[in-house]
């Protein structure tokens, strides 16, 4: 009773003073935040002082002296911790991009399959979604890595794809492309893309002005085939392959040399990430297509659009608006989930930097904050790009 009286007393007191009522909670919040941060900083300083650590990022220039199994740029133990950070970051980006690519393809296929009029197909897609969505991602990564990929044969009995590519327990070896005069081909492809862009622009303006339609699709298909061909012939572009070959390292140990070796960690991680995220993307796609009203399709049919045109011009542009925001979220989740790589020793940012580098330097605060800031930046970059894209395709109200 007394507490209630006190509470209502304070309430009445504040009700009479609106400005105090407005600023008091804010001041308390601010005080609380400053207090907690200050307390933590103070303790951290004392603790680091006791252990003789000086806060700073100078260690990034020191020699890392540990090796990384898989790297997209030149790296060995003599490079600095900063370089090791970069290697880890690139590996994270690599697995995220690969994962996003396959998850999108699979997710769209599964999402459309769930809406298929074919009972078996939609059931199949539903079972897939329900199974892979409800099992923890870490478990799936472990399964692919420790159970499925470990069952692959040793290099000597590798699964052979037409003598150019080999799948073994040590990874997947594929031929390496060696181009000569690659810049000619690249510039011709770029030229073709510019040409296609201009064609579509011209076709659109022409149609808006005169109503005349230009077969822009076939023109661009032609451009895309003809220009690179011209580039190859004129620029004398050559392509040769470096095939992986089996070599004997000791009497019993064989391995592949040459070509490009994709390590099993990368395969397991990319596989698990795409299978898992695809289920969520499939649900976004399904919701998006279902979100377009039936009336839209009927209206499109009644003005004489073919089913293909209806899908391309009426349904998809509207469905994309519903699909893109949640799908962006899934891309973000995939990027963040790629940090589970640390559990199977794929050398991503967390394993290389927050694992090995932290063990060696003991700089917990600096390294964990750099890692977190990196992920924050990646997240913000992706969401900024998607927000921009989202705004671009949003309905332009008049």
């Amino acid at each position, binding site marked *: 009773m007394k507490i209630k009286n006190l509470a209502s007393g304070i*309430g009445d007191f504040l009700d009479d003073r609106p400005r105090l009522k*407005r600023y008091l*909670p*804010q*001041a308390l*919040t*601010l005080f609380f*935040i400053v207090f907690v941060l200050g*307390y*933590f900083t103070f*303790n*951290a300083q*004392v*603790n*680091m002082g*006791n252990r003789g650590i000086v806060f700073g990022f100078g260690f990034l220039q020191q020699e890392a002296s540990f090796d990384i199994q898989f790297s997209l740029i030149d790296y060995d133990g003599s490079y600095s911790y900063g370089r090791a950070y970069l290697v880890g970051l690139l590996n994270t980006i690599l697995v995220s991009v690969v994962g996003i690519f396959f998850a999108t393809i699979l997710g769209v296929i599964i999402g459309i399959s769930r809406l*298929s*009029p*074919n*009972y*078996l*197909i939609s059931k*199949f897609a539903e079972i897939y979604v*329900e*199974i892979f*969505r*409800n*099992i*923890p*991602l*870490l*478990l*799936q990564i*472990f*399964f692919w890595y*420790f*159970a*499925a990929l*470990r*069952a692959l044969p040793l290099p000597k009995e590798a699964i052979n794809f037409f003598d150019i590519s080999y799948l073994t327990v040590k990874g997947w070896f594929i031929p390496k492309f060696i181009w000569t005069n690659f810049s000619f081909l690249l510039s011709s492809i770029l030229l073709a893309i510019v040409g296609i862009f201009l064609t579509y622009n011209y076709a659109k303006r022409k149609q808006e002005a005169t109503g005349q339609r230009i077969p822009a699709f076939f023109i661009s298909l032609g451009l895309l085939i003809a220009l690179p061909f011209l580039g190859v012939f004129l620029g004398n572009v050559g392509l040769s392959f470096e095939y992986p070959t089996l070599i004997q390292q000791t009497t019993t140990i064989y391995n592949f040399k040459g070509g490009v070796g994709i390590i099993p960690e990368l395969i397991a991680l990319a596989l698990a990430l795409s299978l898992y995220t695809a289920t969520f993307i499939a649900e976004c796609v399904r919701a998006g297509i279902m979100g377009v009203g039936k009336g839209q399709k009927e209206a499109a049919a009644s003005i004489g659009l073919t089913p293909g045109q209806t899908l391309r011009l009426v349904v998809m542009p509207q469905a994309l608006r519903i699909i893109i925001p949640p799908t962006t979220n899934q891309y973000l989740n995939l990027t*963040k*989930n790629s*940090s*589970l790589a*640390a*559990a199977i020793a794929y050398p991503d940012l*967390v394993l290389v930097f*927050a694992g090995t580098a*932290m063990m060696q330097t003991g700089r*917990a*605060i600096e390294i*964990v904050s750099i*890692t*977190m800031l990196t*992920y*924050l930046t990646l*997240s*913000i970059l992706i969401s900024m790009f998607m927000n921009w894209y989202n705004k671009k395709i949003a309905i332009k109200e008049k």
Partner: protein
Amino acid sequence: MIGNLTFLKPRRDKLNTYIFLGATFFTLGIFDLISNSFFDKNITFFLPEILSFFTPLLFGFIGLHLIRIEYSGNKNLDIINKNININWFNGILTLLVIFVLIKGMPTLLNWAFFDANFSGTSKEECTGSGACWVFINVWFERLMYGLYPNDEIWRINVAFISLFLIVGAAFFVSPKNKKYVIIFLLFIFPFILISLLSGGNFGLNKVPTNEWGGLALTFIISIFAILFCFPVGMLLALGRRSSAPVIRYSSIGFIEFWRGVPLITVLFMASVMFPMFLPDGTFLDKLIRVIIAITLFEAAYMAEVIRGGLQALPRGQYDAGKSLGMNYWKLHLLVILPQALKLIIPGIANTFLALVKDTPLILVVGLLELVGMIDMAKTNPKWLGFAAEGYVFAGLVFWIICYAMSRYSQNLEQKYKTDR
């Protein structure tokens, strides 16, 4: 009779002939496939190998093509055509699904059941070529209870059985008493649970948290994190919609920070960085640190879900509440939140599901719940090479938990659905 049939476009007037022919081809295809994959007999052995592999598909395709007759007047045929056989593309898809199912099923069933060994005590008793469920059998106690001392396991059993009993009771008691059961369950029972498990009082031996593990730890972390992340998320959501700039921006910053970083780095922070922030000599148990980390992490996601619900409510609800003279807390607790929460049951369930699925991650900081225990068991020198069985088992356990949760949330959603 055959002369009048056009095979390219089946017609209605010769319906029965077409059905007969189609069914024959289809059955032939299925029969070939089944004899091939179940009995190892290839009835088309005289054909080249690749052709022989695809004959069932070819037969099935011809069969489905012959029975694809629109508005045939035969009800069953129409249902079949409408569902699995609309056009040639759909027919092929149907066949592929059946093909994959029949080709893949025997291998899977043989591995999991027919060639598997179930009982025994050592690796040597796994004589079959299939799965070795003996592995799970032998390690079952460890997978469920972790490294908890054998003599004390009854405490975990008592704790969880009483939890299930009380939850069950909450469904059956009269609505008047239900309130008290739920209050007991939310505010008093967790502390009983924790003191029973950790011991050190009431004459119970103390069990340090690093001996906890297995599925029990999964449940403990999930229960506490779910319990705490909900109110924190609610406060953050209200904070984010507050008109006071300091509160709003600090909530936004807090939410976006946690949502922007992966859980694994948060756990690293809790285990290696957080002790640096505490005064020298103070020690916070690792399990508690991990639960706090998971709670804050999921609370940020919860806040966004709740904010979605708050935004979906029409302004009129706020105005109506205010016009009745309600203050901020009364307005939100009695008018806004009950309606908003009802709208976002799927979102809340998704966040809880994500939380449960995130718990295995704690193995990176050295706490071993179900997945961690399997990791430990499969590296035991006596039991090398049973990773697949372990992960399939853990996957099944998690799948059951998550699927049950999502089903329950769908029920709740239906129950509280009101037309607006």
